């Protein structure tokens, strides 16, 4: 519980934390060590009762919040405010942030609380120390957004944006960027509303020009607000998306592509699947060469092999002339079906059945065996058990057929899944099953024809 406050102390206690983790070894956590370190820090003296009771108070608040006892939490909060007057300057500096976090949560959920009291609280906390003004402003704005008060939120952000007090630190710069970006996001929202309005209007309508002018103005302000933020490494999905949408709307395709490429490929940014998806979707609209699309999805494949775009990736690879691409196409399909969430994906099974047959016909047995070797221990139980045969047949006969075909190819005609499906007498699928039986006999990897 006390870790929470330690964490919030920020740079002040950083050194201490490093020390602790060194002492306790990598990846291990000893809660008693913290108290031990604390007593060493104060020279073995007894901790003041003030410190003891306020930290107990903090745990009581956290417990109450966890149990959603807002009333109790407010009661303890009443006493916890005195940490603002703590004689320990470290704790005094950390207090406003803790109080803001706990207090805003209480006010958010407490049945007796209302918009007005939250605003009063936020304004009070903003002015308690210069350190937290921006952070609180931003969170305050988010609260207002949550309650649909767009105008107030925007005003709040504008106020925060122009606020200058104390030293300029790098953390503050990021905060300012964030605030501006959120402001930009709000502007984007009005812009897209206007755009909707515009699309409903006739070009000859007398209001059309005015609205169009409006739309243009908004986009200009927004792009300035957002562009600063998305240059800083981080995950900025909503900002990037809206920014690109506006760039595209005004025909700046190159600009949009640059933003997206940068967002996806800059190594300083954290690995983010969405970045690649955005880029792929964007490129698809431009009708680029296939190889370009393949290279984008290749990265996505490495990050999220189970993504639904992988089937699209497979079709791209299948059509490719390069042999290695075609081999990758098989890998991708196997990869998708490794995931429990995709076991009932009929398209994936259909692709796999068809592709396996193609590949085996094309004499690439080695490719199949390479993929199969690592899976032969667990796929039979995972996909091709008797139980699955029964339930698949019951739920979706088409899926069962595709799966049976794959099972037959991979495990031979003796496989239980395959046999179960064969035994089922189905009028419409009868022909198909017969064809399948023939193919299995011919191509199954279990009885390689020599």
């Amino acid at each position: 519980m006390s870790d929470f406050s330690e964490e919030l102390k920020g740079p002040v206690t950083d050194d201490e934390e490093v020390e602790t983790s060194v002492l306790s070894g990598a990846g291990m956590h000893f809660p008693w060590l913290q108290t031990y370190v604390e007593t060493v820090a104060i020279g073995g003296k007894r901790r003041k009762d003030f410190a003891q009771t306020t930290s107990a108070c903090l745990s009581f608040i956290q417990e109450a919040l966890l149990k959603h006892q807002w009333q109790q939490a407010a009661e303890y909060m009443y006493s916890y405010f005195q940490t603002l007057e703590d004689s320990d300057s470290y704790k005094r500096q950390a207090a406003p942030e803790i109080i803001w976090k706990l207090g805003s949560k209480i006010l958010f959920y407490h049945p007796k609380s209302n918009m007005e009291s939250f605003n009063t609280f936020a304004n009070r906390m903003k002015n308690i120390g210069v350190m937290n003004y921006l952070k609180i402003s931003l969170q305050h704005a988010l609260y207002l957004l949550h309650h649909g008060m767009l105008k107030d939120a925007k005003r709040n952000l504008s106020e925060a944006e122009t606020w200058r007090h104390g030293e300029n630190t790098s953390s503050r710069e990021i905060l300012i960027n964030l605030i501006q970006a959120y402001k930009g996001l709000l502007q984007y929202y009005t812009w897209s509303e206007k755009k909707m309005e515009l699309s409903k209007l006739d070009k000859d309508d007398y209001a059309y020009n005015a609205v169009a002018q409006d739309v243009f103005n908004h986009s200009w302000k927004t792009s300035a607000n957002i562009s600063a933020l998305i240059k800083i490494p981080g995950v900025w999905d909503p900002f990037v998306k809206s920014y690109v949408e506006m760039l595209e709307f005004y025909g700046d395709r190159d600009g949009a592509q640059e933003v997206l490429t940068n967002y996806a490929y800059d190594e300083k940014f954290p690995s983010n699947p969405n970045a690649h998806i955005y880029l792929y979707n964007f490129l698809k609209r431009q009708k680029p060469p296939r190889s370009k699309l393949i290279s984008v999805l290749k990265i996505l494949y490495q990050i999220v092999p189970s993504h639904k775009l992988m089937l699209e990736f497979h079709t791209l690879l299948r059509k490719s002339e390069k042999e290695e691409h075609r081999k990758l196409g098989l890998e991708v399909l196997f990869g998708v079906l490794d995931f429990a969430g995709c076991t009932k994906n009929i398209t994936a099974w259909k692709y796999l059945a068809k592709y396996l047959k193609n590949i085996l016909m094309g004499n690439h047995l080695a490719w199949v065996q390479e993929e199969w070797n690592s899976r032969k221990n667990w796929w039979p139980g995972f996909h091709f058990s008797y139980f699955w045969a029964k339930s698949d047949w019951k739920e979706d006969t088409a899926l069962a057929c595709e799966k049976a075909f794959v099972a037959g190819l991979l495990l031979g005609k003796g496989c239980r899944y395959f046999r179960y499906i064969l035994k089922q007498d189905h009028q419409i699928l009868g022909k198909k099953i017969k064809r399948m039986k023939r193919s299995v006999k011919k191509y199954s990897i279990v009885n390689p024809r020599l």
Partner: protein
Amino acid sequence: MDLEEAEEFKERCTQCAAVSWGLTDEGKYYCTSCHNVTERYQEVTNTDLIPNTQIKALNRGLKKKNNTEKGWDWYVCEGFQYILYQQAEALKNLGVGPELKNDVLHNFWKRYLQKSKQAYCKNPVYTTGRKPTVLEDNLSHSDWASEPELLSDVSCPPFLESGAESQSDIHTRKPFPVSKASQSETSVCSGSLDGVEYSQRKEKGIVKMTMPQTLAFCYLSLLWQREAITLSDLLRRFKELFINGEKLLELQMPKTCSLRTFLLPLVRFVEEDHIPYINAFQHFPEQMKLYGRDRGIFGIESWPDYEDIYKKTVEVGTFLDLPRFPDITEDCYLHPNILCMKYLMEVNLPDEMHSLTCHVVKMTGMGEVDFLTFDPIAKMAKTVKYDVQAVAIIVVVLKLLFLLDDSFEWSLSNLAEKHNEKNKKDKPWFDFRKWYQIMKKAFDEKKQKWEEARAKYLWKSEKPLYYSFVDKPVAYKKREMVVNLQKQFSTLVESTATAGKKSPSSFQFNWTEEDTDRTCFHGHSLQGVLKEKGQSLLTKNSLYWLSTQKFCRCYCTHVTTYEESNYSLSYQFILNLFSFLLRIKTSLLHEEVSLVEKKLFEKKYSVKRKKSRSKKVRRH
């Protein structure tokens, strides 16, 4: 120029209607008489102002107003005197006789001032101390021939008079012809005249006053004042029980005893704010300003600790060179027999156990006057921890009866349970298991409430303490902030939760026959654990284990360490229960139990063997 700007603002203060404005370092106007900070900012007309000038303006502005701003000149010992006065008043309100305040504490304090050479003597320490450190500009006053008299006059405690008079007394004698203008510019400063020097002073052989020391003084006077005091509500509760309970107990009750005079409630009463201690300074007269070093002397952020106050009491007693205290005899409240009775009732144990505790007291000689009476001039000055000792005796008796080895007490409970089922009409046998279940629940609830109350404790006074005048507006603003936030959150709290202070009581648990949920064991009999043998009664349990096998040979206070896991669970529970009642550390009680055992089994200790022993009990 900046000062003029502060004076440009001519509106009346919304809180006190005064027109006396200063500037905070943020450029806001604040009222110098009531510290109300307005939302009005100083209008900056000159753009070439650098931000620091505002702070300078603050300093310059204050320098002018020194005489009114800084309040009276006062000494640290006066502050303590004021606090002692208030504590004595509080004790009086709790039912202690007025002699305590007027005679005992007053005399102790006078003696202290004399012994520590602060007053009532030829050369008070101040004549040497104040010149170099406290006042830099007192050259003009260096010919203060009359200072000793003046000081002794000042220090003369106002206790002799009634409360109101003494207040006015302080008012009339205050204005000292000393100005401390130069102080606000030095880094170390204080509101009191000698605060800086006082916090640095370290003289051998002199006990310096501190906040815990005030409680030591209180306790010392309570110890002296052990004689008849009107019986309070507590005794009424005793009487109610006697009507239903045993006759023999009534005989043992002394007719007169001072119920409140023991250390335990003193510590607890402080915690419950019945005695001014934390933030006691906030009741100082308006003109006694505290800041800077005074903060370290009077501002306190911990509750008093039993052992600490105990040690300080002995220390003060020795320092004051007090004669032997009035005898503590059997009719005194501090006598173990009476305290044992009280604690037996408090923890819901059978009244019959009292005769056993009396027996232990007799055998160990702990009830003797010489043992109990505090004699500061004796070679080894020590006073008995009356309450801890009484509780330790009860623990020893429990061990004698039930062994507390996590098995014997439960088998005795089985017997008692069976017997009680069969004989529903008779007086029930005491069932240890049932007692444990009820006490455990009550104890856990009490402890939980106590912890919650502690977590909610408000430490900060309405008068914020600040380091220097520059900090003052900041400190007041912080305070205002906290008050505003509290005001806001108090609307979220149900009104029932903010009930008033509970009335002080020396009992924490209440057990009455009427309460059906919580069985009262006072009337239960010990027949199940005793057996007849001829004319006497023996305990069924014939074994005993010692809490400590070995004592240190040296005279160190460390008797034994208490490692919880080494002891039986029932013993742990009992220690936890009692130490919670007394608000002491479990190890302290364990130590006391060991000491009682040492006295009880003195002969056997030399053999150093785990012993078996049966104890004779007088037939009753």
